[in-house]
């Protein structure tokens, strides 16, 4: 299988005054299509930066990033926006739902931006929120909110689903359910999912595990026997 995502000596340097901070240093790895990839590391290891760059939210200082046949690293701002809009789904730690929109509308805000999206209500149904379509985020529990966030990401049929600590703000049980949902979606739709987490326990559910430390990739391990989330305990 050819690589779907490819990082090639990607570096990111934050320049604040005279201080240079190497957030990423010569990061190189590949992710194949349909894989669930977990990027794991401690706080400040650079995993979020990595995700930001991969998601087109931030630029890199040097190196090359390919998604499929697109070279993300060469995109300008507008192209990056289009890229985010069409190819990337995001799931945030704090859900980042728009508080003033109902669950359905939070999905629709995305589906209305792109061509040929999945019907919003259908997506929400698929994440188990058919009864919650018209609830505002404040009326939903954290898990439900994260489900809405996932539905929002899925609705645009992204090439890549990026999740930043998706369970970080959730209790254990709910976190599991969310991960389960992500895994199901990936398996059912062959969608490439990248999960960033500090929780090593999650590596068990991943097809590929990338360990990051101090801005560098420590190891890239392909896990041939990915477990179902239900089977994992942490």
């Amino acid at each position, binding site marked *: 299988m050819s690589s779907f995502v490819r990082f090639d000596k990607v570096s990111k340097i934050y320049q604040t005054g005279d201080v240079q901070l190497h957030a990423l240093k010569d990061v190189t790895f590949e992710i194949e299509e349909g894989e669930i990839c977990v990027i794991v590391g401690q706080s400040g290891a650079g995993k979020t930066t990595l995700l930001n760059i991969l998601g087109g*939210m931030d630029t890199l200082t040097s190196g090359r990033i390919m998604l499929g046949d697109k070279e993300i690293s060469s995109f300008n701002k*507008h192209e990056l926006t289009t890229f985010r*809009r069409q190819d990337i789904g995001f799931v945030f730690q704090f859900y980042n739902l*728009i508080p003033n929109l109902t669950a359905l509308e939070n999905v629709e*805000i995305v589906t209305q931006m792109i061509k040929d999206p999945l019907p919003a209500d259908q997506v929400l149904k698929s994440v188990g929120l058919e009864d919650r379509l018209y609830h505002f985020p404040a009326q939903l529990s954290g898990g439900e909110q994260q489900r809405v966030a996932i539905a929002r990401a899925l609705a645009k049929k992204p090439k890549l689903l990026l999740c930043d600590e998706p369970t970080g703000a959730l209790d254990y049980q709910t976190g599991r359910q969310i991960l389960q949902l992500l895994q199901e979606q990936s398996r059912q739709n062959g969608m490439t999912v990248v999960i960033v987490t500090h929780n090593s326990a999650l590596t068990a559910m991943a097809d590929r595990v990338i360990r990051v430390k101090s801005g560098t990739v420590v190891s890239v391990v392909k896990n041939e026997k990915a477990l179902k989330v239900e089977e994992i305990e942490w």
Partner: protein
Amino acid sequence: MVMSGNSAWRKNNWREIAHTWERFLAIIAIIALGSGFYSGLKITRSAMVGSMDSYITQQNMYDFRLISSLGLTREDEKFFSGMDKITAEGAISMDFIAVMDNGTELVLKAHSITNNINRLYLRAGRMPEAANECVLDYRMFGEDVIGSSIKLASGNDEDIMDAFAYNEYVVVGVANSVNYLNYDRGTTKLSGGSVNAFVYIPLEGFELDYFTELFIDIADDSRAYTDEYDALIAGNKEILKAALEERAALRRQEIVDEAQDKLSDAQAKYDEGLQEYQTKKADALDELDKAWKELEEARQKITDSEAKLKDGEEKLAKAEEEYEKSVKEYKDSLKKFEKEKADTFARLDSSQKEIDNNRTQLVSAMENIEESGILEQYDQLTRSIQALEAALQNITDPNSEEYINASVQLGQLRAALAEIEASGVISRYNELQASLAQIDAGQRELDEGRKKAQKEFAEAERQLRQARDKLEDGAKQIEKSKQELADGWEALAAGKAEYEKGLKEYESAKAEAEEEFAKAEDELAEAEQKIEDAKKQVEDIPEAKVYVLDRNTNMGYANFDNDSSIVEGIARILPIYFFLVAALVCMTTMTRMVDEQRTQIGTLKALGYSDAAIIGKYVSYSGYAAQIGCVAGYLLGTKFFPFAIWKAYGMLYELTSLEYVFDIRLAVISLLVSLLCSAGVTFISGKAELLKMPAQLIRPRAPKPGKRVLLERLPFIWNRLSFLRKVSVRNILRYKRRLIMTVLGIAGCTSLVLAAMGISDSIRNIVNDQFDSIMTYDYNISFSEARSSDEREQFIKEYTNLLSECVFIVTQEVEVPEGGKVKKANVVATNDPGISRVIDLHYKGEQIPYPENGKVVINDKLARDFALSPGDYISIKINDAEIKELLIGGIFENYINNYIFMTAESYEELFGEEMAYKNAFAKAASDELYPTAASLADDDKVAVVSVVNDMRVMVENMMQSLDYIIWLVIACAGALGFVVIYNLNNINITERNREIATIKVLGFYSWETRSYIFRETVVLTIIGSLVGLLLGKLLHSFIMAQINIEMISFREQVFARSYLIAAVATFVVTLLVNLILLRKLEKINMTESLKAVE
């Protein structure tokens, strides 16, 4: 408890400010605006009044002006000066028509120069030193007039001429007078009715022996236009009034006494005159009587002579008649006589003839006998017988021989004879003889008859002659009588003529005398009437009307009070608005700040900082901003607001500069209000949040739940909205407080701009409306003297090439008093239908006909000011005294000055005098306005040609000065709008940082992000400006109601363009804010979205 003096704490607070400088600045700005607006508007009146007060004090304006209808004297002056704390100074004022050097005639009010009160403010030149020098009105003439001179026009009334010591005064200076604080120069009875300017002349320049007014100055420090001053005035008014009444009563008595004296003199003189007249009349009458008697006598004589003559004539007539009769008788007698004579002689003649015939026969017979000689014998015998007989006879003694012889002889002879006789012949002869004798006897008889006849006839003839002579004598007598009569008549005629002449003379003398009597009587009657009148006048010498006038009756002073209060009216509303917005801005800003920092607050609390210290941080944060803002606002506001408003009003007044007034009370109030609006609001809104437990605070605040909005229940609208718009709608409605604040702020901006534009609309266009659609004439021509009907026609004919219209009118300025208000109005009267071609009377698009007799039409401002409508009566004050009521027939639109139009008849009835056409409204036939005016002014008959365009320019200039206020308001409005919108958007963006980051991550293009955020601003701007347009209209009405400039009425109107401009201006501000905030929006990092909720 940790002290807030702690340096780390202070550092933290300073950093806070440095870090959130935009927010800090916003509070400063909004507070500055609020306090600037408030203090600026509030101080304006103080500044204006203060400046006025300084000026008034400096020039020592009078506190009271005392007027008595009987005049005032030196004694009065002394009397009042003797009163406690009072200085009094007598003065003279008198209106007159002056001729300037360039020949124009102006109505000036001459004042005597007073030394202490009402000191003149000399602008150029010097004060008069000689009595024939004067100081002129600076405002009206400027400096150039110095050196010229003013003359009393010949058209002035005598008593006016008499009041002045000279006919010409040299202008040595120009000045302002506190008597005239603004442009108003007052009204007059003289031509045109309004005073053009004042002139000050030394007291010696007048020739009056009394003062027309007395100025009173009360020693007191109270400042003008303050309650203390009003109290001072109120306190003294009654005292002065009582004193003045007393003085006036004295003055009246004096005048009455004087008049009484004069009256007595006059009465004495009259009596003397009457006496003289009566004597003279008696004399004259006597003389006339005498003359009359003589005439009567003469007339009697004439009558007598006439009678006599008539009698004579009658007699003569009778005599003549008799004479005629006598003549006739005579003639008859003569005829008879002649006939008798003729008859007699004819008879005699025929008898003669018969006799002669008989004789002839006899003679022949006798001749036969004679021839026979017998006869001789016989004869002899007879003769002898006869002789013998004779002899016998002579013989006395018949016995004597002789006798016997003779007797014998006789017998012989007788025998012889008897023989012959016996022959018959003798008998025959004798017969014949006898016959002859008979015939002879006949003859004799006849002769005798003849003789007798002749004698008789002669006698008759003599008698006749005698009669004739008598007749002739009679005729002669008659003739003589006639002559006598004729002479008598002639004499009579002469006498008569003389008599007539005498009579005529007498009559003319009498007539003359009578005339003289009548004249004298008239004169006497007149004199008597005069005395009567004088008596009555003395009786009627009024109880001296006195007036104690305070400064409020001074047009300039009173108007200044109003004008300076206008701003106060506005100052009551607008600052509240600004402060309200300021409070809202502070509240939102600070609430947001507290929200943002709740974790920090929790931490601080957990660290042991007291509630007071923490609240203090925020309170002082906004407090500092408020203090800075307040100081800046106060300084700028109190500096520029009065300045701008002064620019607008100042030109109406004499003041030159505006004083800067620092009002500590106002400063403190605005600081307090500023602090209340900032720190106070912060405390109140932050308290709830700050008093929560630290644990609560450290946890992120539960997001404000999204809510369905009312609009969603209206699917037909809601479903039509695009998705993002729905989001905007929800977002807008999510924060009610912010929504209100934004709408208020934007509405404030819009409404202020609209109100300001509206003021401009209302003001700017009145000039065009007034001069293009109402008063369409180009000139107001004043004539030196009233024009008669012919003269008017001739004038119009003369200038028919220059003037397309020329309507003669009578104009008079009157006062309209009611309910304490007094407004000036121009009465215009004419019967010329052409008036409607030079003045277009209309109201709200409808033509208003020129009034009929007994009705008037008045302008709308007058109607509004006194709440009058057609059918009501308007009171007007004529000649400063009489109040008359006029029936209002209609109301018309007018913007400059007040007008009352009426017909000539109404005017004559109203003023009780004939129409004196001294003015004409005229329209130029060409565009050459000024050359035409110049040619008109060249006419000797024309006194002044005022070109309406000059007035237009003047008003336009005045209006332009209001632009300062307008621009100031617009600038404030813009600033307000900017601060509010900026602050709001700033908060909005800051608060929704995460949301914005999220949507960016979700792939919103920049423009989508922009419109996502700014759409809300735009919608709020739309709502705000709509509300603002409505509010602006109300605000405009409010301000227009407050702005009340004496001679100008504004049409409350706002053009569509202004609405558009106000809306566009608001959008420009919004756009500007958006442009500035765009950078901030772009800067929002998407990675924010990944951060934990703070």
